[in-house]
């Protein structure tokens, strides 16, 4: 029975990937990609990783989907030309490469699964070291304590992506266009309920992350989703300048994380050591703020945001 569910989800993934990537209109492809992301979330849940299921649904499908949609809308608004399709020879060649790579990856992957040993040394070390940290969620342990350099640099990647996007868009492009806000009667009431709710959910996810599935990434993604919603409802606007508060939010994750790590070094501890659960919360809160703010700005395609309800 369980096998059947797994097989069905797996087939779903393959079919949806095909739908998203091959043939059909681009718009349909994006929609199918979002459904693919949600199905990936199901797969993660089946693999016993609710953390990943949440992250994939919120970031992989949700925010990525929103970014793709808005880019699609902008490209249409620009009236960008549609590229001419590839030649038939190239398509045949590509089909060959695709099939070959599938077969190869399957063979390699199956051999890898066949040869699986009694579990990774690193994973066993993780299971042994986790209780001493007071955290119940091994993933949070890895991300914030054991391998926190990865996490720190990854937040730096997000910052780099924002600055690089601004660099690509240049000075004369203070903000990219957004679709006109929907002024349906119920939107206001809905937003009034949803906006505080996303903040609440984000804070819950952050707090739960130390013991249960959740953490800064999921929380940040939920915040970002709230921001995107506010923007689409016309409650939050792109602004040509980035205010001080927002600029601090952008770098908060990197700065707080590095700051704690360097202070620990100055105190004679190892670099990036995390002094206690309170520090875990501090670092995760700063990361959540940075992730949420950066993703909203990347969606807005603008340097900054302004919250004025009336223009």
């Amino acid at each position, binding site marked *: 029975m369980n096998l059947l569910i797994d097989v069905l989800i797996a087939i779903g993934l393959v079919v949806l990937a095909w739908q998203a990537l091959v043939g059909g209109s681009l718009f349909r492809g994006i929609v199918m990609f979002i459904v693919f992301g949600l199905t*990936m979330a199901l797969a993660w849940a089946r693999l016993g990783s609710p953390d990943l299921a949440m992250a994939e649904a919120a970031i992989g499908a949700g925010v990525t989907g929103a970014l793709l949609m808005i880019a699609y809308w902008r490209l249409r608004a620009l009236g960008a030309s549609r590229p001419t399709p590839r030649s038939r020879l190239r398509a045949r*060649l590509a089909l060959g490469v695709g099939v070959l790579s599938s077969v190869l990856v399957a063979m390699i992957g199956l051999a890898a*699964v066949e040869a699986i040993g009694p*579990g990774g040394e690193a994973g066993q070390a993780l299971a042994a070291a986790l209780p001493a940290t007071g955290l119940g969620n091994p993933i949070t342990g890895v*991300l914030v304590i054991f391998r926190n350099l990865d996490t720190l640099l*990854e937040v730096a*990647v997000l910052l780099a*992506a924002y600055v690089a996007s601004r660099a690509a868009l240049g000075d004369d492009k203070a903000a990219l266009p957004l679709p006109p806000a929907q002024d349906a009667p119920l939107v206001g009431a809905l937003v009034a309920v949803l906006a505080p709710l996303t903040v609440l959910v984000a804070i819950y996810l952050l707090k739960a992350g130390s013991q249960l599935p959740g953490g800064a990434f999921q929380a940040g993604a939920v915040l970002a989703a709230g921001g995107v919603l506010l923007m689409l409802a016309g409650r939050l606007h792109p602004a040509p300048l980035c205010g001080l508060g927002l600029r601090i939010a952008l770098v908060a994750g990197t700065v707080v994380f590095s700051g704690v790590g360097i202070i620990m070094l100055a105190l004679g501890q190892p670099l990036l050591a995390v002094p206690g659960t309170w520090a875990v919360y501090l670092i995760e809160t700063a990361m959540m703020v940075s992730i949420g703010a950066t993703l909203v700005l990347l969606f807005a395609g603008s340097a900054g945001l302004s919250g004025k309800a009336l223009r």
Partner: protein
Amino acid sequence: MSHAEVWVVAAAAVFGIGLYSLLIAAHLLRQLIAIKVMGSAIFLVLVVAAGPIDGALDGLPKALVLTGIVIAISAIAFALALLVRLAEVTGSTSLEDDADDDR
């Protein structure tokens, strides 16, 4: 223990579809989706190909995947900004119609 083989085969098929699409799609937006989808397939292999510990899947690769998901969205977000700017400046949404860049 889950059914690792099932996921590996699915990941392989998704990877192949992604590569195929990357090669034939002319539109950059589609190529970026292809890269994202291939990334998901690799994350699946990363988690499934690690050995189980006490009957459950190793926790470490899951944390790596979480990091990978955030990196993927950062890279895609930058790529989309670049694409919109490219389309605005050159009117093109493809790398195919490259003119020979001469000043």
